[in-house]
């Protein structure tokens, strides 16, 4: 089994109001050195398949089709081998 650990994040050119709110909150907690915070999504997908090449291709397709919006987001992922239950 393989686990895909997918990060979907906003492109740098896209404003992240949630990140800004968190930055403001951290500033008010006294963390003055924090320059920017960006919020992203983390998604885990478990595959009942050990073929990393095939799984990797599928994760790319899944991200392009559904998980990431190409207008505003980018994605990155890594695969982790899981022991059979």
């Amino acid at each position, binding site marked *: 089994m393989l686990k895909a650990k997918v990060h979907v994040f906003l492109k740098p050119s896209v404003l992240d109001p*949630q990140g800004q709110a968190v930055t403001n909150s951290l500033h008010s907690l006294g963390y003055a050195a924090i320059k920017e915070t960006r919020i992203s999504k983390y998604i885990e997908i478990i595959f009942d398949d050990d073929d990393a090449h095939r799984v990797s291709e599928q994760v790319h397709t899944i991200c392009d089709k*559904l*998980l990431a*919006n190409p*207008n505003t987001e980018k994605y990155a992922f890594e695969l982790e081998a899981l022991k059979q239950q």
Partner: protein
Amino acid sequence: MKVSVITFPGSNCDHDAMEVFAERQHKVSNVWHKDSDLQSPDLVILPGGFSYGDYLRCGSIAKFSPIMSEVSRFAEKGGLVLGICNGFQILTECGLLPGTLMMNKTLQFICQRQFIRLENAFTPFTAGLPKGMVLDIPIAHKEGNFFIDEDGLKALQDKDRIVFRYCDKDGNVTSEANPNGALDNIAGICNDKGNVLGMMPHPERAASEHLVSQDGLNIIRAIEGYFSI
């Protein structure tokens, strides 16, 4: 006129839209998202709501509903498609309209009366209305902050595809009158051919004598006018 209103799991403005058109003696069909027959409409409405709970991104899952391939085919043949609020989000997700509706700049769900200015009076949805007309039509959304890259924005501007902009009561398009941070105060856009319109404001919520504004009727009458020619 034959109107088909699509219901996705989580749509909640479908009956409002159906009622407005039924009251005006149009033949209205309610089409379930798993259906494959659009019921040969003149106009398809993708209504507001929270399709699939707005999970992942608003409209991102609805685009894979079986009926959406029929909606795309219908739009490509020139059929009229109106996406309101969540319907607009679905239209951008499935690529019938460009851009993305991002989370409001304020991070808040905004439910309020809103003035919008008519920028393009040459679409089937706005024909016959005076350009610059100010309409009082409510908004209710958390993801209405329209975003598109620089080239995309220029294309919308150059091809006159911005149909509505947020404005104040006198029609001034200002940042103060922009409720959600939308780029260039964009409240509604159409596709290249003008037969697909997406808008965040809800004309179906301003089309009854019982409500404070009836300005949404202008859009409905314009569509009726388009089909009566």
